[in-house]
Structures are given as C-alpha cells and as structure tokens.
C-alpha cells in the first residue's frame, strides 16, 4: 500500500590482528648501488592496496621519495613470512614489519653518511633522499652517494629487516580471561542508514549510508574510502540480498550463478557519505589501526533497525528479504512478557525447537 521511510543506527568495534596474537609479519629491505630501495614484504594484496600502503610507509620511514621504492611481495623465495591478509593485519602488522625494516636500513644509511660527512649520526636527518646535518643543511650527502660509497668503498650491502609480532595471549578456558592484550589495536565505527520499505512487496531500498570510521591514521585516505565504500555494499548484501542457503537450515535451492545469487549490483548503490577520523594507535605505523574487515559489520544491524523504524517489525534473520519483511508484517508479533522479562523470537529459539529445551547448551556449568 505504501512506502515508509526509516532510519537505523549502529556503533561497532573490531580488533586489529589475529585474535590472541602470535601472527608474525616479516620484511626486509635492500638499497641498490644508486640508492633506490627494494622492499620484500610477504603481505598479499587482495585489492585493499597493501602494496601501496607499505610503499608509502617505507618512503617516509626512510625519508626518500615515494617513487624510489619498489615493492616485491610476489614469492616465498625472496619474501619472508607474513601470516596472511586477514584479521585486518596488513596495514598495522605488515606495515610495522616494513617500517622496522626501514628503520634498520636508515640506521645503516646514517652510519655510513656520518663516516662520509664526519658528523655524528645523532646530528643527522634524512629528508627527501638526502642526509643533512641538523641545523646546517648545506652539510649533506645524497642517499645515492651513500649507497655508492657502501657498495664500492665500505663493502656493505645496506639492508634492514623487521618482524612485527605480538606474543600469544593465552586464554583461560574457564572464564575467558587473558593477561596479555590479545590484539594490536581496536578500530571503531558508527553507521546511520536511511531506508524506504514497501509494505506491499516487502522490498527495502537503502537510500543513504553515513559511515564514520576511526582508523587511527589514514595512510592513504583514498584507499580507506575504497574500504568504506566496498564494505558498505558488502554489508548491504549481507543485510538484504545475499544468502548461501535461502531456506536455511535446508541446503536446497542454493544459488549457483550470479542471477540466482544476488551479489550487490550498481543499481543497489545508495548515497554514501564517509567520515574518516584519526585517533592514533599507540604503536601502529604512523598511528594506523585498521578498517578492512569491519567495513561490512555495521550495515546489517543498522538496516534492520531502519526497517523497524519504517514499518514497525524486527527482522532478526538476515538477509531481510522481502519475504521475511512481509511475514513479519503479517505476524506483527509482540514480545511475550513475563514479569520483567520481555521475550522476543521464542518460536525460532533453541528452546522453541529443541526436544529438551536445548539442555546441551543452556545446561552447562555456570
């Protein structure tokens, strides 16, 4: 009969790094005789842009122009361990590995420069590919000259290697407690979603998504936007369109092509407004935290809350397909009240379907 507008909200958090740590990333760097920089990192770029971000980190950690740096993550003979591109660890842990490697290489550069300039390394700095005396920038030597001297005079290959690794945080199996912080950082985000719900067809159209992300430090703001936008559409799919098992828990009628599995398409694109905040981490590279994984977490609850705001029903089984919205509208179920308890969704709960009220789960030791 009518289309109704609604708005929903969600605030979320997400850890950086593998849960409980113990996931190393290693990198190493060498300088060519002309001062150009080769980085060997193990972080796989799945599109998020780790090759770009790590190059930026190395450029600034060393003090050289960005285009002096080449990035090789292509094989396991030349690159060292990076546990993997997951758990939102690529920028923080992978980035710290290349940063530590760059810092070690920087020490070697300053050591050779100090010999050449006869100035203590503590009194030198590197700016734009040149080693300068602090306060007396006319006393200087270029990094290409430093690398040439290393190669042909001092007999040294300028390298640096670094490992980022937080020790494993053991968990107490009885109460879940830890004594070592089990992540590298925590990122936060908030999301406001406006929808329009058609109460005759059950269809929900997402009109706008406002997303706020605290990423610690946006090493490359455009790549951060890419994560926000890509994650937004994946979250929209998770909340409204996609299901591997449309009749879960049945395994029947799975979609096996793009026509029958509804991945978000261009026509689903709402208006997006992105806000990037920087509340730096204690020890991420240049204060960075993470965003990659959490980028699709806030949308489903915000969409569900917006649907409730629009048409007064709570859909708690994702995706909120038109069928689920219509069934909820038909049922118009109010929660059961028992004393001070307000009880929703009993019909789909464990107690509602299990032969013994789910004793295997509810009956474990307190």
């Amino acid at each position: 009969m009518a289309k109704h507008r609604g708005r929903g909200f969600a605030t979320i958090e997400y850890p950086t790094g593998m849960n409980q740590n113990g996931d190393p990333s290693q990198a190493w760097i060498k300088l060519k005789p002309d001062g150009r920089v080769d980085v060997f990192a193990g972080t796989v770029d799945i599109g998020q842009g780790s090759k770009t971000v790590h190059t930026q980190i190395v450029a600034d950690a060393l003090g050289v122009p960005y285009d002096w740096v080449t990035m090789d993550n292509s094989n396991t003979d030349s690159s060292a361990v990076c546990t993997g591109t997951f758990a939102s660890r690529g920028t923080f842990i992978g980035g710290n590995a290349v940063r530590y490697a760059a810092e070690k290489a920087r020490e070697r550069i300053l050591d050779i420069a100090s010999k050449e300039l006869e100035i203590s390394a503590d009194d030198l700095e590197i700016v734009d590919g040149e080693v300068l005396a602090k306060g007396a920038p006319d006393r200087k030597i270029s990094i290409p000259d430093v690398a040439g001297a290393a190669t042909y005079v001092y007999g040294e290959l300028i390298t640096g290697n670094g490992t980022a690794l937080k020790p494993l945080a053991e968990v107490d199996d009885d109460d879940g407690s830890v004594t070592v912080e089990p992540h590298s950082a925590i990122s936060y985000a908030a999301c406001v979603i406006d929808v329009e719900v058609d109460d005759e067809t059950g269809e929900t159209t997402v009109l706008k998504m406002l997303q706020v992300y605290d990423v610690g430090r946006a090493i490359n703001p455009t790549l951060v936007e890419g994560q926000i936008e890509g994650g937004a559409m994946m979250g929209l799919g998770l909340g409204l369109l996609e299901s591997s098992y449309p009749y879960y828990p049945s395994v029947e009628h799975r979609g096996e092509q793009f026509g029958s599995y509804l991945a978000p398409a261009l026509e689903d694109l709402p208006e997006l407004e992105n806000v990037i905040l920087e509340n730096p981490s204690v020890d991420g590279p240049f204060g960075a935290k993470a965003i990659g994984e959490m980028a699709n977490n806030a949308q489903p609850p915000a969409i569900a809350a917006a649907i409730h705001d629009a048409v007064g029903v709570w859909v708690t089984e994702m995706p909120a397909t038109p069928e689920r919205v219509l069934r909820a509208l038909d049922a118009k179920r109010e929660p059961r009240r028992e004393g001070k308890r307000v009880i929703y969704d009993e019909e789909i709960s464990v107690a509602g379907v299990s032969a013994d009220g789910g004793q295997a789960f509810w009956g474990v030791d307190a």
Partner: protein
Amino acid sequence: MKAVGARLPRYDGIAHVTGRTQYVDDVRVHGTLWCKALRSPHHSALILSIDTTKARALPGVHAIVTHEDVPHNVYGHLEGLGVPADEPLLAEGDVRWKGQPIAAVAAESEEIAQAAVDAIEVRFEQREPILDIRTAADPDAGEHFHQWGAIYPHFGPHNHRRVRKGDVEAAFDAADVIVEGVYRPQAIEHCPLETQVSLVVPEPSGRLTIYSCTQAMYFSMGVVAAHLEWPLNKLKFVGGTVGGGFGGKVDTATETICALLAIQARRPVKWRFTREEEFLTSSTRAPWHIEIRDAVTKDGWILGRRMLTLHDAGGYARFSPYGLTKHAFHHTGAYTIPNLRFDGFVLFTNRVPTTAMRGFGVTSVSLATELHLSRVAEQLGMNPLELRLKNANRVGDTTGNRVVMHDPSTVVVTLAAADAAGYELGEDYRAMTSERRSGDLLPEHLVAQQAPDGEHLATYRATNGGAR
C-alpha cells in the same frame, strides 16, 4: 612526512587499467594440464569403494589422485593453535558435505578431465543429513557423523567457549527490565570476481612452483608442505596479487591437490573453479544462532548480559573454533557490561565447511548486539544513541576478557555520526568524552570492573623490533 596521509596513486594502478596485472589464470606454462574434481553428490554418506580404473584408461588422462595418494591426508589448519585435525584433503571413508572432493584428475583438456571424473565409480551408503545446529545435540538426535560428535569438544576441558565475569544472576535480579532476543545472521558467499585457482609447475630441481590466489602465501605453503610431508624449501609460492579474497582464499582449496597431480603427471597442472563450483563448493561465511538476554535498568544501564551462541561449522572444524573465540572476546561490542555469562558452541552439520569472511566472528556480534540494543532502547523509551553513549567503552573500562581499554572511540564515532546525521541528543550526552568514568558515569555496579588508573595488560604497548 610526504607519503603517509597522501592520496598517492595505487602502486598497481597502471597495471590494472592497462590489463597487464597478472592473475594466476593469466600465467601460461607450456604443457599445462587441467584439473577437475570428483565431488560428493550426497550431503552425508559412507564411501564403500572408489574405482578409478575406467577413468585412468581414458586417452589424455595423465594423473588421478585419491586419499591413498596423499602422504598426510588429515591435517588441521589450526593445529598450531590447539585445534586437532579432523578434515581429510580427499575424502576417506565418508563424505560430510555435498561437493566434498573425493578424487581429482589431471588431463589434456577440461572436457577430458570432466569425462574422467564422470568415469570414476564410487559406491555410497547415504546417511540422513544433520542440518539444524539448534537440534543437532538433542538427546534424540541419533548418531552424529563427526568423530567428535555434534559439538566441537576442544576448548580446553570444555565443549564451549566461556566468558564469566562478575555475577550475571545478581544483575538479572537487580534489573528493571530483561530484554531477550534471537538473532540469526546467515551464510553468504565471498564471491570474489576471480574464482579459486592455482597452477602447480614441477621444476627440474624437483621443487614445485605454485602460482596461487591465496591470501596467505606462507600459511598455504605450510598446508601443502604438511600434506606432502615436504620441507618448505621444496615449494615456491608465487602470487601476492589476488582478484578479491574477503577471507575465502585462505582455505588452500586447490593447491595441494594440484601439487599431487603435478607430481604424478610430471606436468604443470591448473585448477580453476567454475563459478558454479565457487558458489556451491567453496567455503562460506558461517551461519550463526545467537540468543541474548540483557539485564537493564530503566535509566539505561546495561547491568549484565547472558549470551548463547551456536556457530555452524559445516562438515569440519577449519577455522571455526578461532572464529567463535574471537566472537566471545568481542561479545559486548563497543560497550562496557560488568556482569557477563557467555557460552559459545561450534556445531557440525552436513554443509560446506564454513570459514573466515570479512569480520570473522565479530560480524555476527555486531548484527546481534547492535540490533538487540536498538530493541532495548525501544523498550526503555530511550534515545538509541544515548543508550549507547552511556554504556560506551571508556578509558580504564575492562572487557569481558579483562582487557583494559586505553583509548576507545565509541563516544567519538557515535557523536560524529550523530552530528553528521542530525540526531537530537541531550546536552550532557553531546558533552561526553572517552575519559575515565567518574561521577554519574561511574555508578556502583561499574566500580569493580574499572581498572586502577594507568594499569594495563601486558604488551598493550608493543615493543616489537627488527633483528639486530
């Protein structure tokens, strides 16, 4: 600083727009054979016999592998994290999900490989599939297909991941309202544009070069090495550039089988999933079943939470115990709740094993707990943002695992969103910060959970460094 913070162009941007970026399927090696797999047509069945005789006789077939050809068939991806192995590379004795690989063929063309697959004869004895995690552990559920039973039993001495803090029963007694709800986020596909693919090339030295779409080169190399019982230096993984992953390209779905075929055939072997194979047989995000009971006061304090989570692992454990543990660590979301009881279970069902996908473990927390808070706000007649701001993580607050918050941003992002979206908020809420709780923001029930000023867990500040 010049580069950090700058909108510098993508390192690989020019290669992408000129069509030069090389993905695994773009690599051309002379003599490459194509791989196809024989997959289980049943959701759950015993394997009585496998006969590859007719398949081997087809012209153009160069290699066929079954479980007998795998030096170490049952290997657990998370053995290093205490999760015992339960999953065979190639099915041995039974199949537990429709699509589970039983055998694989390397042949001159995809068509010949598929014909050979179709010529492999397998006798099955079907079993009734177990599909509903809510009832899989019922007393009348009958025998379960998994050797560990319906429920993963290796969370230390327990069959569930536990969080216990404070006194949740006292919190329920003290509450004005208890809001209870059930949340069921579902399985979805990673659906990258590039399907699973690998190309394994035997080198003259006896090493294998493995072109892989993996998101984790050394992780996948370790998996292949473990199955082959080889040292790492006999393998060279080549990759680092992937056509989308989202968590679905960690499972090392094709590399080991291609390696076994390449060794047998002494030829390069490529396996590229069809899109149908990707949709129907590649691992998915997990379905979850989450029940939350929150004890709240009428002025919006969340005194305690009791939460029950069931996680659908599918046929085998894979990364599910890790995902559930991460879920447990974050089950309070961006808020401070002092009294907690969390019980999380990993259940085995006859569907494709579930795996990591973007947000692993916490996506389900965000869906369930944020939607639940929206309901709580409605029940209390409270502004949903003010409810969140009041209970937000603050410096010195502790989580369910006793992590001490040193710099949370719940308040910051919530206020920024409120501002940008034009939400009405009370003055005192607009003025909130993340600083240590005190005064009205430190009621009696939050005192015990607050860590002493300046105290933190070990290594909250990392002192990582490189080698000397």
